[in-house]
């Protein structure tokens, strides 16, 4: 059985249904990439998984336990952490406090593993997170999610706003984290990068998964190439 299992997930906002029955499996130590144009519901899916949005139908199972509509804090406590869209850092608090909060009960226990990944954050520890540059905030958001040694890590557009050097670093990082046995679900606009590190990938359209399969296969699928890779086969 997969570590994270999503079955027939329906999510609505008001009267409007946004996800019309999503199925995803995320195996132990697996990386799955979610692709899709703007507004197809990727973030909605991620929020539902973290317990931010209510689920109207279907189930979410984490390591055999049903976490459908569980409160977000229990989901996090069970090891599902997310670096969300829009960063959602604590702007009025210092970088250090943001990291402590990310660590939850462990506090700064993992700081020595996380900080070396983003040395610039080390220089900004005392600064208010809101005054960081866009990219620095994005790093903080990812670092915060890593502070808790998650079993499942959800990354919603982690490379957004990062300089090319760092984008590369992020994807390397994703691969490295997986080495430690963490399962990762990654939503990316940088399909090229995501498909390179992912084991499997799924493509969403209009609130449904329309295409799924091994990442390498999808990277060469003409439909994907046309729609997400700007018409060039990934190198």
């Amino acid at each position, binding site marked *: 059985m997969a570590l994270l299992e999503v079955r027939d997930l329906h999510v609505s906002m008001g009267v409007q249904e946004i996800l019309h029955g999503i199925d995803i499996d995320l195996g132990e130590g697996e990386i799955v990439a979610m692709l899709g144009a703007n507004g197809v519901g990727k973030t909605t899916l991620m929020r539902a998984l973290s317990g931010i949005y209510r689920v109207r139908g279907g189930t979410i199972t984490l390591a055999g336990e049903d976490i459908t509509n569980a409160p977000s804090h229990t989901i996090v406590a069970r090891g599902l952490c997310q670096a969300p869209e829009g960063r959602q850092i604590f702007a009025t608090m210092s970088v250090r406090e943001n990291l402590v909060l990310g660590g939850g009960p462990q506090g700064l226990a993992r700081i020595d593993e996380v900080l070396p990944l983003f040395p610039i954050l080390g220089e900004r520890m005392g600064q*208010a997170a809101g005054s960081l540059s866009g990219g620095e905030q994005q790093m903080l958001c990812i670092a915060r999610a890593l502070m808790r040694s998650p079993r499942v890590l959800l990354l919603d557009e982690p490379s957004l706003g990062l300089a090319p050097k760092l984008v590369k670093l992020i994807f390397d990082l994703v691969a490295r984290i997986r080495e430690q046995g963490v399962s990762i679900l990654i939503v990316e606009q940088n399909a090229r990068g995501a498909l390179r590190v992912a084991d499997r990938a799924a493509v969403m359209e209009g609130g449904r998964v329309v295409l799924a399969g091994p990442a390498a296969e999808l990277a060469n699928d003409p439909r994907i190439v046309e729609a997400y890779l700007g018409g060039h086969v990934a190198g």
Partner: protein
Amino acid sequence: MAGTSPAMTLESVDLEDDWHEFSGFFGPNLPVAMDYYLQQLAIGLSLGMVYALMAIGFTLIFGVLNVVNFAHGEVYTIGAFTGLVVISAFAPPLIVVLLLVVAVGALAGVGLERIAFKPFRRFSDEASLKSRAMREATLMSSLAVSIVVREAVEIGFGSQFQTVPLDRLLNSPISLGPITIVSGDVIIFVVAALMLGGLQYVLKRTNVGLSIRAVSSNPLGAKYVGINTDRTIIWTFAVGSMMGAAAGILVGLYYGAIFPSMGFIPGIKAFVAMVMGGLSSIPGAVICALILGFSESIATIFVPSVWADMVAYGFLIVTLIFFPRGIFGGARDRV
């Protein structure tokens, strides 16, 4: 001071004697003017402490939800009436009264949160989160609750001052050199200092405090790091309202004035102090509450007392002109 007032009947009043007693009051050694200012300062301090007592809980709650809790004044009133009922029912010692009041205050806070604030957290879409209308809606719901509570207290107890057993009042005079304070000043000072110190410790040093500050900074972000935001908010309301209720009974016994709309004026002053202080800073609110108290009593030295509030509000405006985000407020978010 004589126990049976010498001024009771005219026949017994000896003007010369009165003079004597009068100058004694200001102390024989210091120049009278100096004593006068010192006394006014002492009164300003105790006025400020009274506002501060209320401002602490108010600021705590505002800090977490970023919405004005218009019903905090009613929690204060509930605290005072609870204390009064307890005292008249079985006259326990003050500390027991306080404990009971604090318990009722916590209940009131939790109830208030459930009724007037929680329902509005069901709207999580962006348009609602960023909408002024939604923000002001919680302000209004707390106002509506406060109206209902105040009217209910009024129907239950009447709107007159309640009679407080005189021996329970916290106003036995204490002479400190040339100035006179009362026992309540000391108690209020100690309680306010304990509250302030305790809260500062909790907020700055403990995980609970960190969670509270996180929820106040970004409630959605707090969910992502696994904070139980509902519980944090409830606790904050409970603690803030406990402090509000305790303030109510202490000030009620201090002035001996317990009536349904007693929370109104201190509520406004606490609100003003909180904003002057920069919204999320509890020490800031306390300092500004003291400034307000001082400015009222000092103003009375120079202008008729009816204008004293003018000086206090003038202080507010001047403060905001120079510190548009309060004295201890942070900067605006960068662009």
